[in-house]
């Protein structure tokens, strides 16, 4: 389902296998478990860490396991609810995060990519696609909140969510959704890893990094269930460092 390996200061989270990496209960649990391990290992090792998430094969992730849900609204609701804490884990992760988009990312898969700090994508093929409008599913509220937090150009947001635009890497860069584009899957993965190493080398304090990240989009954090630290707690942290 997924593997976590540590290469120096960088944790590489791989969605394994040639399939669509559909987000069902099992994969979501595995991902949450792996992310928690990375956070724990980083906490022990001290400041300076980063996460790269990558999918093997043609897909980053093609979204929730709607095959499993079938016609059951209850099951679909379960998957939507199960994905929410995974989104929260990423938004609260005490280290920089990079999504290495070597394959398609649709719907819930696109959401996961957006929950990372940076997106590095192959330019030769692959799309980012919020497919919900095309398949006739509304966006869960937390999807909307994360989209609004990360895609701040009104037209880009409209094109992605309301028009189901299939966004290729170069266009994604212009829209402010993709940070860097490389010509092949292999280069994309390699450059994403190098970039993550550079971020880890800044030796940022993980707790502070996560706090600053969350302060950029409190509404999205609330929508995925993260409780933000109060100013009082932040000031105490500051005082404790003096």
């Amino acid at each position, binding site marked *: 389902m997924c593997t976590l390996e540590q290469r120096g200061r960088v944790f590489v989270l791989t969605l394994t296998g040639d399939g669509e990496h559909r987000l069902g209960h099992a994969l979501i649990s595995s991902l949450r478990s792996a992310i928690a391990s990375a956070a724990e290992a980083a906490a022990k090792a001290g400041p300076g860490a980063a996460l790269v998430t990558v999918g093997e094969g043609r897909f980053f992730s093609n979204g929730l396991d709607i095959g499993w849900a079938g016609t059951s609204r209850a099951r679909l609701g379960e998957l939507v609810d199960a994905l929410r804490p995974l989104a929260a884990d990423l938004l609260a992760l005490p280290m*920089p995060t990079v999504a290495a988009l070597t394959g398609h990312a649709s719907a819930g898969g696109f959401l996961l990519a957006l929950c990372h700090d940076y997106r590095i994508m192959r330019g030769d093929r692959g799309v980012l696609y919020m497919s919900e409008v095309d398949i006739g599913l509304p966006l869960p509220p937390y999807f909307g909140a994360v989209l609004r*937090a*990360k895609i701040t150009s009104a037209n880009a947001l409209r094109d992605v969510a309301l028009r189901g635009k299939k966004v290729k890497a170069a266009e994604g860069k212009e829209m402010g959704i993709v*940070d860097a584009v490389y010509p092949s899957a292999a280069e994309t993965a390699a450059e994403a890893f190098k970039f993550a190493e550079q971020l880890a080398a800044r030796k940022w304090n993980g707790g502070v990094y996560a706090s*600053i990240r969350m*302060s*950029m989009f409190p509404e999205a954090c609330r929508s995925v269930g993260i409780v933000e630290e109060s*100013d009082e707690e932040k000031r105490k942290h*500051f005082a404790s*460092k003096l």
Partner: protein
Amino acid sequence: MESKDSLCTVERRGRVHLITITGADDHRLNPTRLAAIRSAVAASTGAGALVIAGEGKYFSNGFDTEWVRTAPSHLHATMDGTFRALVADLFSLPMPTVAAVTGHAAAAGCALALAHDAVVMRGSRGFLYMSEVDAGIKIVDFFAELVREKVPDAVARRDQLLRGDKMTAAEAVRRGIVDAAVDGGVEDVVEAAVAEAERLAARGWDGEVVAEIRKALWPKVWSKVKDHGAGPAAPRPRL
């Protein structure tokens, strides 16, 4: 006219009330300097526009952590409160405001610049730098709100806050954070800011209306600082 301790000077140039943060140091913001700047801002009555500039290498390098280190912890909130009060004063000021970022502006210094209606920055030297991530300091909510409202682009905001990018004027203009980069020395930047302020003053806008519109455009920041400021004038009737 000089303010107490000569932490900043004040002069009128035409219709423009020009405040210069003085000293060869890095213009750290502590309660004393913040109070001096607030006094200088309060002295702007009757002017058509306001400019805050710095002399030397720095606009401001942020909060005075040395002061915080030695001050009792119950006073830390005072520095935060005094900074909010200054932002409240700028938000409720009945005239357009321009920041002349004549040198480095970091952390609270960067936020101070953003709290103005317009920012001009020295092109040849100096960085805009949200240093908190590198310094290991968490960002309190109203500060984050100010950046959210004044830097609405998610990528620019991430690079500033989460990556601690040191932005030159050209970079800041490209990303829409700063309005103009000005070639030359400190005095050239000040002159350009004063010229811009003079152009804004020449529009002859009703100052109270300017202040009300400003608060309506950035209501979340205003709501988080308004109780700290000098106090509002009687509210104008709304149409």
